[in-house]
């Protein structure tokens, strides 16, 4: 354990009141672009929360770059940034400037307001600083959340089904932003197309790993299985 620059799960699982959400997993994630696919309720989001240190595993351990990111929040902020699906559930502050400054202040940046202004400017949004967050469009809210996370310069970025419900050009633009990132990226999605060209893809099913390997191979299996699967939809039951 404790390998440099890796997300490491050692028998890490998660259960709520003896109901297993995620079976104990042992994984070492070092690739630059990693995709996690799976159907609704397969445990993808729980895995993301474990890897970001938002929840503690109920068994085993999760370490990022050798740090216990659940216990050591200061280390977690340096190591992992996470972007969730719905920007409405992430924006906490009244104006764009304050929203971006919050994480920076938490990291102990000396001038969070100035740094936030610079981060907005870097994405060509200097004029957003005093803008009420309630006046942003859906796509703009997603971008604000992304800017807020990137401003903190985490070594890796977890994206938990980001950009759902946006139109195709907006999604493409946001994906281009992500493609440019130097950081390690873990992208969680149920859309195989978003993972083309990735180094590694993990397919989760019913809280366990169904397949893990090169993107092309795992995605082909996943797509075939999803298209063949008529009986067991999310709507059944």
């Amino acid at each position: 354990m404790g390998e440099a620059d890796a997300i490491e799960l050692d028998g890490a699982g998660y259960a709520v009141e003896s109901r297993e959400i995620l079976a104990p997993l042992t994984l070492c994630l070092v690739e630059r672009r990693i995709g996690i696919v799976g159907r609704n309720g397969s445990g993808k989001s729980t895995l993301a929360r474990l890897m970001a240190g938002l929840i503690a595993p109920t068994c085993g351990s999760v370490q990022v770059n050798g740090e216990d990111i659940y216990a050591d929040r200061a280390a977690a902020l340096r190591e992992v940034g996470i972007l969730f699906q719905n920007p409405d559930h992430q924006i906490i502050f009244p104006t764009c400037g304050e929203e971006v400054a919050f994480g920076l202040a938490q990291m102990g940046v000396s001038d969070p307001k100035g740094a936030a202004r610079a981060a907005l400017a870097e994405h060509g949004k200097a004029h957003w600083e005093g803008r009420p967050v309630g006046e942003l469009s859906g796509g703009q809210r997603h971008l604000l959340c992304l800017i807020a996370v990137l401003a903190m310069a985490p070594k890796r970025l977890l994206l938990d089904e980001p950009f759902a419900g946006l139109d195709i050009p907006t999604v493409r633009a946001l994906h281009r932003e992500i493609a440019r990132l130097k950081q390690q990226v873990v992208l969680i999605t149920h859309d195989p197309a978003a993972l083309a060209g990735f180094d590694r893809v993990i397919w989760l099913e019913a809280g366990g790993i169904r397949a893990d390997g090169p993107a092309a191979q795992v995605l082909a299996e996943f797509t075939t299985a999803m298209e063949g699967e008529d009986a067991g939809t999310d709507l059944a039951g």
Partner: protein
Amino acid sequence: MLALTSPVKTPYHGLRAGLKLGLLALATIVLFALGSLWGQVAGLAVVMALYALPGARFARAGVAALRPVALFAVLIAAFHVVTWTPVEGAVVVLRLVSAVALANLVTMVTPLSEMLGFLHWALAPLRALGVKTRGLELAIPLAIRFIPVLGEKGRALGESWRARSRHRRAGWRIAAPLAGLAMDDADRVAEALRARGGMAGGTGK
């Protein structure tokens, strides 16, 4: 969330909600009229017997539901110990425990649907006077529906806080964004409501 529902089916379930609430009101008046310590002890004994009747599991659930009252009882007891009026203190504490236990009993054995039915019945005089009660009867299920929805949003906001913070608990800081999300929803829900009859109740406006 603490559920105030009975874990078992009891004979009390068969009684009508209105009857149970009426008896509760009557019993509460009696409890407040009883000034003597022995009267209150007898009152508590009756309440305990009512809890014992459906079995041990029901009684245990009843005791668990009483837990929040403990703080109040301790506060009162402490005051009466300090002022050295133990008998008066005992009367007040016993009355408090009996009255809350009895009311909890009614809550535990009366499903929400029956409470709503009772409410509809109790509002009949107002309707007879021409007051429209439809708004109220729409608002109750709406609010009940919104509670888990807002709770989930609050949870997500807290998580977003944690993801960017050194501290684990966001607490009151999510109140403003949560209120904002609630207001964002209002327009859409209001439209959906209007699309399906709204305040007019399907009678057309």
